[in-house]
């Protein structure tokens, strides 16, 4: 058994932007994920952070083949998961499960907890006998800390935290190797977040799970993960063990990100020096050339940053960074300078076509 469970190689997901007079032509792409390599070791938790729209969820979904990747592959436990088709793919899905951000919308409101949990078992022929299944359901519920009486209830009868537990139980039911959790706690109240975070950690120990946790909250990711990858505009800019990353962020973006996160401690806050980034995240439909971050980078150097896209390279053992000048920045050779914010055009993204004509009848017109 090799140490690596998942290996993502040069994964790309480009969503076409369609336009046309009569037939839809592809006039461009949203480069949601644009060349990501990463490896997740068995039993570890890999955290993925980045700003909204940088492609975290898309990467997660592409790995699960919920979106078809444009290029690249994912090797899972030595098998090329990206090449699987039909029934093979479906069977393999058992081993990779997902937990979603919005616990309510990820649960079918019309299914009871029982049928939510059984559905996966049935799809993989794991509900052999009634008793066994019942036993399994009870185990699952106690594993995620829900009372047994929950089985007959429906998702709306639970609180947010409890729903997320149901979602986790659903993923657990299939005894997966990998769980991809896309913002598992960001929809939860702060006081409840910790419950779910703790639960996930316990379950990992109990069942030897491997996690890929996606979140925009670096504090949460850092807390839960062994290794953290930082994404910016479709690419991975830095990857390191979580402590390492906080101790010594190497990429300018990571530095700025870390300095921006407020800490609930006035003493720390008063001392902190912020690196304020100018401007906004560029549109993934029109990413900057060269280093994606160069438009906002306070350490940006002439020419190279605009033209050459830096690759992820190992600077320290286990610490990778995608910056041409990481060493110089680390050593203080290059000092930050002021950056003029660049205007970011919003809008011209994805517009569903306006239908030919609108509602047909009075009643439809009455229902806007």
């Amino acid at each position: 058994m090799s140490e690596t469970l998942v290996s993502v190689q040069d994964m790309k997901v480009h969503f076409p932007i369609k336009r046309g007079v009569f037939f839809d032509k592809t006039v461009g792409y949203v480069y949601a994920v644009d060349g990501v390599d990463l490896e997740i070791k068995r039993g570890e938790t890999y955290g993925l952070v980045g700003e909204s729209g940088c492609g975290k969820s898309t990467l997660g979904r592409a790995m699960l083949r919920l979106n078809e990747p444009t290029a690249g592959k994912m090797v899972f436990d030595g098998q090329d998961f990206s090449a699987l088709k039909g029934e093979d793919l479906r069977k393999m899905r058992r081993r990779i499960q997902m937990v979603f951000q919005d616990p309510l919308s990820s649960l079918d409101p019309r299914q009871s907890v029982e049928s939510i949990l059984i559905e996966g078992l049935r799809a993989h022929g794991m509900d052999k006998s009634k008793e066994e299944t019942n036993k399994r359901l009870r185990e699952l519920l106690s594993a995620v800390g829900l009372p047994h009486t929950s089985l007959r209830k429906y998702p709306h009868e639970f609180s947010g935290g409890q729903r997320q537990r149901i979602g986790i139980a659903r993923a657990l039911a299939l005894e997966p190797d990998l769980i991809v959790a896309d913002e598992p706690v960001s929809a939860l109240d702060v006081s409840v977040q910790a419950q779910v975070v703790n639960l996930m950690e316990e379950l990992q120990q109990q069942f030897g799970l491997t996690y890929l946790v996606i979140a925009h909250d670096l504090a949460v990711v850092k807390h839960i993960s062994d290794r953290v990858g930082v994404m910016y505009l479709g690419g991975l800019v830095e990857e390191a063990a979580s402590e390492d990353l906080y101790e010594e962020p190497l990429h300018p973006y990571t530095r700025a990100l870390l300095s921006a996160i407020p800490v609930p401690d006035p003493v720390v806050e008063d001392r902190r020096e912020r690196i304020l980034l100018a401007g906004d995240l560029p549109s993934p439909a029109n990413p900057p050339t060269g280093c994606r971050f160069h438009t906002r980078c306070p350490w940006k150097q002439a020419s190279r940053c605009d033209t050459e896209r830096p690759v992820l390279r190992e600077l320290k053992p286990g610490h990778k960074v995608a910056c041409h000048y990481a060493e110089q920045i680390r050593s203080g050779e290059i000092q930050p300078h002021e950056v003029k914010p660049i205007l970011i055009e919003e809008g011209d993204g994805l517009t569903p076509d306006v239908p030919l004509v609108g509602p047909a009848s009075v009643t439809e017109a009455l229902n806007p």
Partner: protein
Amino acid sequence: MALLEVRDLTVVFQRKGEEPFRAVDGVSFDVEPGQTVGLVGESGCGKSVTSLAIMGLLPKRGAKITGTVSYDGTDLLKLSDKEMRDRRGRDLGMVFQDPLSSLNPVVPIGLQVTEVLERHRGLARKEAMIEAKDLLDKVGIPDPNRRLKEYPHQLSGGMRQRALIAIALACRPKLLIADEPTTALDVTIQAQILSLMKELVQDLGTALVMITHDLGVVAGLCDEVNVLYGGKVVEKAMRHPLFAEPRHPYTHGLLASIPRLDAARHDKLTPIKGSVADNIPWTSACAFAPRCPNALDICRTETPAEEDQLGRLLRCHNPVVPGTPAAEEVSV
């Protein structure tokens, strides 16, 4: 005298066929000129309702407001609709949570800025435009002349929030209420906006009421912090003592349950058990009692009174003794 004195502010929502609902329950706080006061608490604890009550923006029907909100000595709650209109935007500014939906999508940014200038400063459109340009410049919007003509959807999230701030500050109000101004934004943008607000408030000497659920934001910004739970202030203190020694079990629990960036990995988090849905009404108990690790019997039978304890206000029968670690997690 404080600039804003909120005393016993209570908002009761009465809907047909439903129990009356006390969204805000006897909240009192003061804001001095130039001071920043934070209101924190989880979703639904009454932060927004408080701010809307101060601004007189709650619906006339269905919401019963009692208490006093005195601004510069006048009770805002007693003002007529017309008088309140004259004050809003001039004396009191407000910034809302969602910058996209808070801007009118079919009116150019410029007009949305100038209309408030025209209204309160009596400027003509032309003069107002010049002033608006300066304002946008001040809040850090590049190329303001062009932006004035654009519509909200053409701006990015951060720019929109800057525009909203420009609108709120256009008439140099003495009091600015910011209701979660950064919640919808990414961290790097959030940092920009927070530092902008800090700067502006300092420059203009504006008093700021900062509403947020993010304790981190409060820690860096506010002078005084009010922690709300179920519509009541459960703990009120200056920020240093509050974060150093949270006394109310709720404050304490909150701080213990948030992962900290500067904490070591695998420091176990200590969540608060249950969820806000487990609230019980304040009428004859402590609303937090069902979730409270320190709960005593009295907590379920008697509403705790607000007590002044060493410069902080506390509403608890059994406060946390400083220095105790957070209680162990109890399974739900």
